[in-house]
């Protein structure tokens, strides 16, 4: 017979989303339970051993600026860091860190088990229940398999690939969301009772190679950058020794082997029906879709300092283990490779994020929040950002406060939320810098500046973090003063300030000849340079932002039926009924809503614009 206990919030799943959600709740004083199958796998990196990458590093920095865990733990676990896109402009510069996988999970487990107000529970969830209160359904409790009951007002579900998780390796089928772990089928059953429609998605992971069986001497080495860049503004406690990665390529023989075995992959037999991540396709998919490519790049990434596991990035597959070994051995450097574990595909249940509101709360059950991969995203960083968002909003809901509306101009995190909940997605969503219309403004270097206000307002930040941010701000201000007062002679007649000089496209901060020995952070100098160079572009975006906010004014009254409105297509009417936009702006964001449809709906359902009432609008 199980026990009964009370929590303000229960977070189901301790992956990248669950960790951030539960920390955000606990940090704000809510008693929080974090339920995981295995306490040793808190924050486990189920697939590749890296954090960051283009646009993803931006998410990590934003999560960090809201007090999140990911950046800090990644900094402590990094064994190789690289900056990407250095020459393409300040906004798209990104950081990618290879991490020691075990160190990452261990550190995360350790830190999470020391968070105040947070209780880590090792258990399997049997389901959750709700009660009807005045016509609305509210979360009431979570049931565990051992019969225990956790009474709670809010649940954050971050089940990753575990809901009805099914792994495929050739014709082998294994229940579970990750190799060695079980599946969480009973949660899916609870969800289906709520009215949410679950959809199957697919993802995959490559085989793990034994480093002792790889001939590295034949391969190009890829070293990390000498200057290691951090994600977090918190002072770094320690730094691990650095390792290198290696580069190799598939060849025609590899492709032939894979092609000859197309019939043995469940992906092509129609057995796997879930849609997979387009930007992380399995190797058989790449060969089939791009038959003309002579080779595909493979990064061989070490999984840790004290590990023989090597992750072949770009080689995820659901082919049978014998085929995997065969095609891998056709690759240069891998001629004698041994597999420590074959790759596999996994199919799992996902929510339609359009059935969530912008607080990630279910539109059908109050107090039920979802985040991470089950919201149809891919990537650790995307999951972390969502977990944090759901944690923040669940806290606000517990306090009976309004949700924060996602502000696309503030962060990639909110762009992600807005995209998912207002446009939706049919395949696993990955973040790109091109998804943001405010790309120039949403940079790694100013992530803290963008998010700290929200973080401190919500009480998510520790003193150490506040202090380092204040120092950085002070240092930025000091540097501007310094550059504005120091002058440089550019020709016979003209002397300008260094700050003016920095505005020139060809000048970067390293060229100023200023002695920064008093320890100004690189990130501060980068911000300084952006400030000087992009001022015109940024002020244009600021003006447009102001106008955008004005356009949000008009509210829509959707108690009015749009059926039988002349000039409106059934498609548009159905979309409006499905997504229930509250404002003209939200309406305009639904795909397929043409300007004329917008005008027609505004005429019919526009409640008010500024101080004009709907009566005067109706003609």
């Amino acid at each position, binding site marked *: 017979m199980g026990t009964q206990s009370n929590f303000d919030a229960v977070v189901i799943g301790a992956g990248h989303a669950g960790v951030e959600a539960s920390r955000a709740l606990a940090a704000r004083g809510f008693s929080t339970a974090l339920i995981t199958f295995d306490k040793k796998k808190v924050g486990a990196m189920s697939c590749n051993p890296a954090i960051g*990458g*283009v*646009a993803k590093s931006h998410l990590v920095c934003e999560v960090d600026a809201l007090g999140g865990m990911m950046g800090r733990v990644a900094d402590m676990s990094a064994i190789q860091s690289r900056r*990407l*896109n250095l*020459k*393409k*402009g*300040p*906004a*798209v510069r*990104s950081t990618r860190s290879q991490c020691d996988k075990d160190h990452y999970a261990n550190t995360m487990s350790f830190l999470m088990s020391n968070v105040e107000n947070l209780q880590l529970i090792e258990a399997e969830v049997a389901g959750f229940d709700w009660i009807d209160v005045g016509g609305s359904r509210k979360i009431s409790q979570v049931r565990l398999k051992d019969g225990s009951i956790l009474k709670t007002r809010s649940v954050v579900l971050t089940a990753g690939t575990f809901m009805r998780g099914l792994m495929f390796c050739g014709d082998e089928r294994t229940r579970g969301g990750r190799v060695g772990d079980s599946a969480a089928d009973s949660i899916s059953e609870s969800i289906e009772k709520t009215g949410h429609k679950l959809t199957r998605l697919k993802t995959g992971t490559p085989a793990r190679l034994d480093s002792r069986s790889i001939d590295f001497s034949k391969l190009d080495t890829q070293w990390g950058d000498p200057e290691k860049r951090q994600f977090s503004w918190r002072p770094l406690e320690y730094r691990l020794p650095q390792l290198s990665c290696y580069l190799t390529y598939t060849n025609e023989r590899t492709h032939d082997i894979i092609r000859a075995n197309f019939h043995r992959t469940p992906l092509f037999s129609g057995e796997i029906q879930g849609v997979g991540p*387009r*930007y992380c396709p399995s190797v058989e998919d790449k060969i089939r*879709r*791009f038959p003309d*490519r002579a080779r595909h*790049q493979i*990064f061989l990434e070490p999984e840790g300092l004290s590990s023989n596991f090597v992750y072949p990035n770009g080689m995820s597959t659901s082919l049978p283990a014998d085929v995997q070994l065969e095609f891998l051995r056709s690759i240069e450097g891998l001629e004698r490779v041994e597999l420590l574990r074959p790759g596999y595909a996994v199919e799992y249940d996902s929510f339609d994020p359009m059935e969530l509101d912008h607080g990630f709360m279910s539109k059908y059950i109050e107090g039920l929040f979802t985040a991470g991969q089950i919201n149809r995203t891919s990537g650790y960083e995307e999951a972390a950002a969502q977990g944090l968002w759901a944690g923040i909003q669940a806290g606000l809901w517990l306090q009976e406060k309004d949700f924060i509306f996602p502000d*696309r*101009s503030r962060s990639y995190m909110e*762009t992600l939320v807005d995209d998912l909940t207002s*446009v939706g997605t049919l395949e696993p969503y990955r973040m*790109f*810098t*091109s*998804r*943001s*219309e*405010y*790309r*120039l403004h949403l940079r790694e270097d100013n992530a803290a500046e963008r998010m700290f206000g929200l973080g401190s307002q919500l009480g998510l930040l520790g003193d150490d973090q506040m202090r380092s941010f204040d120092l950085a701000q002070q240092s930025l201000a000091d540097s501007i003063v310094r550059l504005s007062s120091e002058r440089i002679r550019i020709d016979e007649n003209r002397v300008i300030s260094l700050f003016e000089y920095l505005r020139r*496209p060809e000048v970067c901060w390293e060229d100023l000849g200023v002695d920064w020995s008093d320890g100004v952070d690189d990130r501060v100098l980068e911000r300084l340079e952006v400030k000087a160079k992009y001022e015109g*572009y940024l002020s244009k*975006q600021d003006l*447009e*932002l102001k*106008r*955008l906010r*004005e*356009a949000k*004014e*008009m509210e829509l009254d959707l108690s009015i039926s749009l059926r039988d409105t002349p000039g409106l297509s059934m498609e548009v009417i159905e979309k409006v009924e499905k997504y229930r936009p509250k404002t003209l702006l939200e309406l*305009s*964001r639904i*795909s397929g809503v*043409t*300007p004329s449809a917008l*005008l027609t709906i*505004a*005429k019919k359902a*526009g409640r008010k*614009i*500024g*101080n*004009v009432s709907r*009566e*005067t*609008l109706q*003609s």
Partner: protein
Amino acid sequence: MSEINHTENFATKSATVNSTSLNYIKRLGTPIAALASGLGGPVAIVRVSGKDLSFLKQSIGSFPKAGEHALRKFRSSTLENDFLLDEVLVLYFKAPHSFTGEDVIEIQGHGVPALVDSMLAELQRLGCEMAMAGEFSFRAVWNDKMSLEAASRLQMLFATEGLGASSASRLLSFTKSHDSKIQALLSDCIQSTLKARGRVEAAIDFAEAEEEQAEDIAGASERVADIRHTLTQLINTFEVFTQNASIPQVVVAGLPNAGKSTLLNVLCGSERSIVSALEGTTRDYVEVSLKSLGGRNFKLIDTAGLRNLSEHSMDAHHSVESLGIKKGLELLGGAQILLWVWDARSQTHLEQLNFIKKSHPSLRVIEIGSHRDLVNLADKNSDVAESRVESLFSFVHDQKKLREFVLTQVDLLEAERELLLNDLNDEALISQRQRALLSEVVVELDQTQLCLNGMRPLELVGDHLREVEFKLRQVLGQDLGEDYIGEIFSQFCLGK
């Protein structure tokens, strides 16, 4: 990473929202008034539109029946005062059978500025707002009385100065097939823009795939160049149309004292410009509206003498006059026909004429020789070629023949030009609004190339190409978010 279709991931929203049409929408509940006719004529027409205009009865008494007119007294009555302002004709168009689709009252009064001002002030006192530019047309569109495309053409109609009748009716009868042609062209450009952006964004977002990046950037650059080519052609068609759509301008030019002003007087039948024997006395330019023998309207413009144009010899003494010469050259730029006057006694004008022809290749030229009575045409040594004899006149004795000759030549040249205009009928013709937007697009495309060439950060390509796509959608009227509606109407004049 060209192998992946990256275009579906772009931010689907634009950062740009203009709120002009929100202003129109906000005022929908308010009655609006404006002067719909020009001032200075005998009659001024004030137009009022609103959902409920019964308040106007305080001023003009009862309304005539819907669709009819009646004579009324327009009174101005305040607490202190009550007096008759004007006797007016009132027309009543009842909703929805009006231009705006609302109730519309038209008040025709005397075109005396002070009276009109008082009338508008009284209307404001009664609760009318002064209409914003294009607000009447906006309401017509809002109430489905007019399509947006129609409004856009209408705007061009009003905006093109001195529009020829045939061009004006072409704009009014603009057919769907013209629009669909532009639609198809620009939709292709939008698709191509997306693809170009896709390749660049892939190079940014898949930074690890270094192998394909150079190819992606070169591919994008090629596309951008193609789009630019298509758009400049569209703009060019527009230029040709507007250049030819307006009433033709005939500029009279020639060396000083060749007889330009006399010719002008002959054509106009009265003394329009000062004629004197002093070289270069026509200091400013003079413009006269005339009709050709075939009944075509044209504008005749007299310029200052063109002396040594090719040498720019403009000394201080002649500064006033040189301003006139400069103006003359400017006028040539906007003209369709050059009426070149030369003195039959001398050939020195040829150098100047060739200079003009070379710098204005599209200009058609009518050459007129003066002082026929002072040269001996029988003299084989005379400089006058035989072929030119028929365009030689004595400006003193052959005035009737001279007049007929010029007016016939204008007809001949104009008939040619009308044919050219007809040829344009099948071409995709954009409106002025579209043309302005397309020019902005071309600027953005040039900026894009700078980024692709490495002169600017690559990440700015996203912003520039998004702007390109956005403006192209605006041209097509596909995006209300950017509020092209406000943009059309705000270009109208008041009262429209």
